[in-house]
């Protein structure tokens, strides 16, 4: 492998007190690669995302983004360098409109993000926010305050906000979590339509969703990586079968 990995995790650990939520995780995500992270509840998947985006930085190991060490950077600096993520439970600005949520997401990576000047409707960032609403199929809700959205629309907005900054590496944490069967296809179509050259790390509980979307799959359990394989080998892997069929025992 000669190319610089988009994301490189080396022996990443995260402890909460005595709990090893993530322990000694090492893998590379190459530019344009799509990696799925599977594992039972409490395996440490979300915590792994938190170490990468900086919400809970690693307590051990290191992380590089396109060769630059970002292990100790503040979350906002990581975002400015091209990491975008969604949250398992939506973290939206409930008191603002859909358009303002997306506009903030677009502005966050601009050099002039701190500004006292209200944007006009023709502001390029406003236009970008509208375009993103269109892509996320919530363009008809632009002026709606976010606490009025349905759960499905919130999930679509959640993905839109992560995409709006044009991240180089996109991390999606169970984007379809809690969606009703009626809302699911809409979101899955959104994910399918993501540009193929986007580097993607996807946490997904449902193998039927994760496997077709991924180039490579990491399976975690108790904070550690237990299997790394291509999607076609995953379902037949004995360890994976033990985790998924053996229940939580």
């Amino acid at each position: 492998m000669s190319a610089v990995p988009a994301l490189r995790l080396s022996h990443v650990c995260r402890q909460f007190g005595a709990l090893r939520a993530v322990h000694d995780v090492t893998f590379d995500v190459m530019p344009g690669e799509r990696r799925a992270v599977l594992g039972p509840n409490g395996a440490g998947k979300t915590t792994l995302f938190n170490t990468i985006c900086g919400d809970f930085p690693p307590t051990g190991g290191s992380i590089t983004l396109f060769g630059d060490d970002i292990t100790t950077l503040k979350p906002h600096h990581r975002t400015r360098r091209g990491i975008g993520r969604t949250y398992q439970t939506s973290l939206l600005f409930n008191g603002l409109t859909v358009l303002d949520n997306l506009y903030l997401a677009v502005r966050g990576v601009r050099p002039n993000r701190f500004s006292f000047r209200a944007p006009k409707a023709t502001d390029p960032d406003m236009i970008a926010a509208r375009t993103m609403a269109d892509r996320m199929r919530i363009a008809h809700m632009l002026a709606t305050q976010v606490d009025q959205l349905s759960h499905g629309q919130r999930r679509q907005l959640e993905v839109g906000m992560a995409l709006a900054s044009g991240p180089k590496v996109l991390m999606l944490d169970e984007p379809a979590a809690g969606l009703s069967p009626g809302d699911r296809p809409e979101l899955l179509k959104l994910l399918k339509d993501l540009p193929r050259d986007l580097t993607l790390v996807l946490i997904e509980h449902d193998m039927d969703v994760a496997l077709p979307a991924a180039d490579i799959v990491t399976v975690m359990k108790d904070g550690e990586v237990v299997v790394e394989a291509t999607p076609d080998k995953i379902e037949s892997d004995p360890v994976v079968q033990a985790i998924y069929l053996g229940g939580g025992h």
Partner: protein
Amino acid sequence: MTPARTTVISLIGLAVLVVAPLVLLAILPQNQAQFWTSNILGRGLVFGLIALSLTFLATYGGFISLAQMTVAGVAGYTVAVLTQGAVPTIVGGLPYALTIPAGLFASVLAGLLIGAISVKTRDIYLLMITLALAMGVFRFVETNIAWFNGYEGIRNVVGPDIFGLSFRSTYVFYYSVVASCAVLYFGILYLVRSPFGLVLQGIRDNPRRVSALGYNVGQHRIAAFGVAGFIAGCGGVLATIYNIGISPGSIGLGASVNILIISVIGGLGHPIGAFVGSIIFTVFDTFAATIYDRERFNTLIGLVFLIIVLVSPDGVVGLKGRLMALLKPKQAKEAKSP
């Protein structure tokens, strides 16, 4: 409320304030009309400005600070210390054209400093740390003779002449106050549409997401306290001129808590609440003391405060929404019944 409706209601409120002195002159004897204009409406709006700085922080950032009266005092003391003619002369020698901007600059600095000191705290901890700062400044000023003339304070800050008219004239004072309130209030309505204002509201709703989007949360918080410092400073300068001076009592515990009471009575959900609350407070403050004695006023305003908090946590401004919500299901039921 939609932004358009807010603007309309605000403009109506402004129009009422502009014509109020004329209406008062028409229905009351001249000395009473002037008393209402300056001592009730004018004074109410001045303290409304200081409360506005708190309402701005609370409504859009979710920050409740007890140090806004202190910040106002920083502006007031700066003017009093520097202005020619103030008694006693501490630095003196400077005209209002310089000392008022200096006062506002000082209050912005004070706001930024308080914002920076409290940048990691929220909720009750923010309240406590701002209270501690306020009381620290109060004690320091009260005991420092060289710079602040101790508990006696500084007198004879009479205010500038505007276009040859004395600030001591009821109407010059009143309309200067109304103009300041209008500029700052509409300034806030503009500011909350700017990236800064939107980020501030984002911090209120979800600080973790704000930083995940690439914004520096601390920087925006500190800036918000700086903006609030400017607003409070305008109120502090006007209050000092209204009182013809400033003394430590005006930045003590009682005064600091009064700003919070004013904001809560008016409603922390919208900046207009600061003025509504302040005028209500001023009416009580003025007349309760003449009906009862001073101690009864505290009981009375405490009672009003309690009722507001229990009946309508978003204050008098939120009362209408609450009444509508109470009436609506009733109407719906009545419409359904044959």
